[in-house]
């Protein structure tokens, strides 16, 4: 699966502030889903304004698409995009055993974090639906130093560092786009349960005790499942708890 998918546009940029920002700029004239890849980002960003390390050779891309769906369903693209990234990595590495998923959309390599996915709706629902930007950064060549990430965060890793495999970002994007298109079709055709089952099949720490932190609240419990709405379900000493938004720590 390495052909560019039908119905998806592609724009490759040498330098941009952030592919997420570029998505916002092209959103008003968007007529079909489009992937944006930048060889260099000057102001890459992560969740809630966190800086994102983006040296040359790593993947920095954003898929921007228009969806006429309620917000809670749009949010399930978190799992669709994580699965697509997992699939693309498994394909180019020829091995999925080293890969796993952390709720909701972290893809792990040898238990370390090698990619980040950030999804934003642009400007809320408007005429023709909501524009969703799915930003994906992956450490293909270089990982940040452990001192550059939060103390409780997973060990940052790169594909090259963990496997010795050198991947070209543009080549990798073709695999990612193809797998995203496949998972998107699966989601829109068969619904979330197919995506949910596939996600759970690769989930890290399923059945083990993990911690979910939302704001200042921490919930510790056994990772039971992901429910039909995408919530993380932890079994705590006081019963099952469904968690719609949190940072997860192992």
């Amino acid at each position, binding site marked *: 699966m390495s052909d560019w998918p039908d119905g998806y546009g592609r724009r490759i940029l040498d330098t941009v502030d952030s592919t997420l920002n570029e998505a916002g700029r092209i959103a008003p004239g968007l007529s079909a889903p489009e992937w944006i890849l930048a060889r260099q980002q000057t102001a890459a960003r992560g969740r809630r304004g966190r800086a994102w390390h983006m040296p040359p050779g790593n993947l920095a891309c954003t898929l921007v698409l228009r969806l006429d769906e309620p*917000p809670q369903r749009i949010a399930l693209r978190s799992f669709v995009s994580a699965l697509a990234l997992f699939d693309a990595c498994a394909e180019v590495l020829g091995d999925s055993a080293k890969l796993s998923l952390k709720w909701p959309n972290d893809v792990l390599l040898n238990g370390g974090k090698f990619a980040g996915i950030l999804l934003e709706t642009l400007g809320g629902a408007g005429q023709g639906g909501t524009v969703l930007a799915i930003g994906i950064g992956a450490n293909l060549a270089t990982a940040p130093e452990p001192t550059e990430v939060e103390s409780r965060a997973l060990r940052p890793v790169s594909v090259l560092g963990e496997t010795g495999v050198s991947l070209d970002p543009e080549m990798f994007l073709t695999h990612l786009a193809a797998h995203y298109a496949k998972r998107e079709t699966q989601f829109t055709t068969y619904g979330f349960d197919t995506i949910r089952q596939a996600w759970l099949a690769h989930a890290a720490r399923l059945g083990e005790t993990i911690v979910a932190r939302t704001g200042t609240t921490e919930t510790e419990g056994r990772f039971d499942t992901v429910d039909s709405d995408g919530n993380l379900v932890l079994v705590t000493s006081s019963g099952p708890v469904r968690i719609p*938004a949190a940072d997860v720590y192992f």
Partner: protein
Amino acid sequence: MKLTHEEVRQVLSIISESSFDSIEIKMGEIAISASKSGPLRAESVAPAPPTPQAPAQTQQAEPPTPPRAAAAPKASDVADEGLIEVTSPMVGVFYIAPEPGADPFVAKGDLIEPDTTVGIIEVMKVFTSIRAEKSGRVVRCLVENGDFVEFGQPLLLLQPES
């Protein structure tokens, strides 16, 4: 339609023994909202918020969020004052500003339009910009940064501009 004292007691008993944290029941003109962590309210249904979609115990973003006085205006008060509510279109964590340290999207006294962004809601690492969908001057902000919000929960109170 009225509920008897016994019927109300039975409803509370069922909820108390269940694993649900909160529940809303609507029957004709009567609506009951009950929560193990908050006060019970029973009121006539004028425009009642839709039933939250998340059914069971749902984690609160901030430690047990007993509804703050400002966060739970009575529908009758709102109507009496001629105010209108901006409500949440989804479940998630509400942020008042685009990122930590930034100015809030809206503040008390601001005049806002339907397409004004009033906050961001995060769910499953998806950040959704929330538009007012109504116009008016902001009288009160009902949720704080990082609060967990439910579907249909009031976020702002507006005074319509004539």
